């Protein structure tokens, strides 16, 4: 929780117009009912805080929380340390669907916020992709290893990305808009986007967190989970649907931000043990804080220009993924 507060204050304070964190913290407290503090910020600064930076930080918290939660859930459901919304192709499926809506739907104003149809289309794309990956990954039969599933995910990703490239080429007028979204952006986020993502965030978080104990049971395999009184397939489908919904909402709001779903749950696992009862809630919290802080780096490192946040997470995530691969090698061989 502390990490979220730090991320909140840092995220709102830092930027092209820097403000003292103490004053920002006071202004944020003012948003709570019944609190009236004199923060000493000017009216313009207050507008920057409440209308520009705060929604952006909140969206970062929601999207980061969703990606990390979805990653942790996929890792449990597939009993695979490498599972993540991106490696499974889920994000690519959602990405293709969003591209299709933007390119074919002809929304031209990039600042207008997202059409309500976008998350729904993304959800269908995400479900389609995860189903495909699951079927392809399971096609190897009993001998399938964690690597098989990830290879299937990579194939599905490539397939959907190809579809996306084709769409973009046919509708080159929307390339600029799609790309600014694709590379990961929290930049244009206003309260509109936050409100759009919030219901999906709540639904995903409630479903996944309520079933976190079942992920521990699933970790002993389907046969043993059945003999412990579980319906493994029923739990699995429900959790896959919830994680895919979360991924879809995250992708529609902020484009393709990779590696959060793998960095955060693994770090939590190292710090707090292997039980999903602990991993999932902590992943959600740290995932949110992680993305909000990454966004601070993205908009200050090369100020006044912004680096797409997806680029920053990939720069951090690439080396991290290699580390995970090394520790997961026992599982893969």
């Amino acid at each position: 929780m502390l990490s979220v507060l730090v991320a909140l204050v840092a995220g709102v304070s830092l930027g092209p117009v820097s403000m003292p964190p103490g004053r920002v913290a006071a202004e944020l407290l003012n948003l709570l009912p019944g609190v009236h503090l004199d923060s000493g910020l000017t009216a313009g600064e207050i507008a920057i805080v409440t209308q520009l930076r705060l929604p952006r930080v909140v969206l970062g918290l929601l999207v980061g929380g969703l990606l990390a939660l979805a990653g942790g859930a996929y890792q449990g459901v597939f009993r695979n340390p490498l599972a993540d919304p991106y490696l499974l192709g889920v994000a690519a499926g959602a990405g293709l669907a969003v591209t299709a809506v933007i390119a074919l739907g002809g929304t031209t104003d990039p600042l207008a916020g997202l059409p309500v149809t976008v998350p729904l289309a993304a959800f269908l794309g995400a479900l389609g992709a995860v189903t495909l990956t699951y079927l392809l990954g399971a096609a190897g039969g009993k001998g399938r290893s964690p690597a098989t599933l990830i290879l299937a995910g990579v194939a599905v990703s490539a397939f959907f990305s190809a579809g996306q490239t084709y769409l973009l080429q046919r509708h080159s007028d929307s390339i600029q808009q799609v790309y600014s979204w694709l590379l990961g952006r929290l930049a244009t986020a206003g309260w509109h986007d936050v409100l759009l993502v919030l219901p999906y965030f709540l639904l995903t978080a409630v479903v996944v967190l309520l079933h976190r104990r079942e992920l521990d049971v699933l970790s002993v395999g389907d046969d043993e989970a059945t003999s412990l009184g579980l319906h493994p397939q029923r739990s699995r489908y429900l959790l896959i649907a919830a994680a895919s919904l979360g991924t879809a909402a995250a992708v529609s709001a902020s484009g393709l931000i990779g590696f959060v779903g793998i960095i955060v749950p693994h770090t939590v696992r190292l710090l707090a043990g292997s039980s999903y009862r602990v991993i999932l809630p902590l992943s959600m919290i740290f995932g949110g804080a992680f993305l909000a802080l990454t966004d601070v780096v993205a908009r200050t490192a090369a100020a006044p220009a912004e680096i797409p946040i997806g680029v920053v997470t990939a720069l951090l995530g690439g080396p991290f993924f290699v580390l995970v691969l090394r520790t997961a090698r026992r599982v893969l061989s």
Partner: protein
Amino acid sequence: MTPAGTGSAPAVEVRDLHVTLGGAPILTGVDLTVATGEWVTVIGPNGAGKSTLLRAVGGLLPAGHAVSLSGTPLRAMRPRARARVVATVAQSPVVPAGMSVLDYVLLGRTPYIPPLGRESAADLAVVYEVLDRLDLAAFHGRELATLSGGERQRVFLARALAQGASLLLLDEPTSALDIGHQQEVLELVDQLRREHELTVLATMHDLSIAGEYADRLVLLADGRVVAAGPPTEVLTEELLATHYRARVRVVPGEHGPLVVPVRAG
């Protein structure tokens, strides 16, 4: 340990069980009765269908109306209710990476914890009691993967006991253990069975050990029961020669016949 003739239903009753997997018949017309408190071990050559029979009794295979547990048809039981009656120790249980002994044994309480709820103090009390009982209390924080084979087998048993089930299914419970640990684990099972009035249905490869611990043996070959009864009736040189194609001497032992392999010539 046969029931006192109270007329209560047997712990396990299998009537005319047929199982076909991938088009191939695995079990054909199997009948099996295990009385409450009895220890029955299923023996038979590789591929005879021993594990499949245990899976069917444990509810892991659709067994139709063929299997009843304490008089209730398996089909009529919901998974959680079934898990409170029958606990299984698989042949080579999955060892989840990083999971502690305590968390692992706590999984045994799954059928008692509400689907969306969390474990109660009573659940934890049961777990600690079982850990104590199996001399595992000192291990509760250890990672399961770091334990030795014998210790792990005790943890697997502990999870099954935490389920509070009266029927224990053990699929090759000792195949991964050296001879000393085999005896240790089986003595423990026998002791627990007497103390908690458990019924045990096991599969085993070592025939002498199978005969020493079981009240009755069931010899399975090609998916059919070819002999059943006290160890002295099942462990005979003729039956083993016919169904295992094994050359053995059977010598009387203190707790049952001992089967000694003999080289040809």
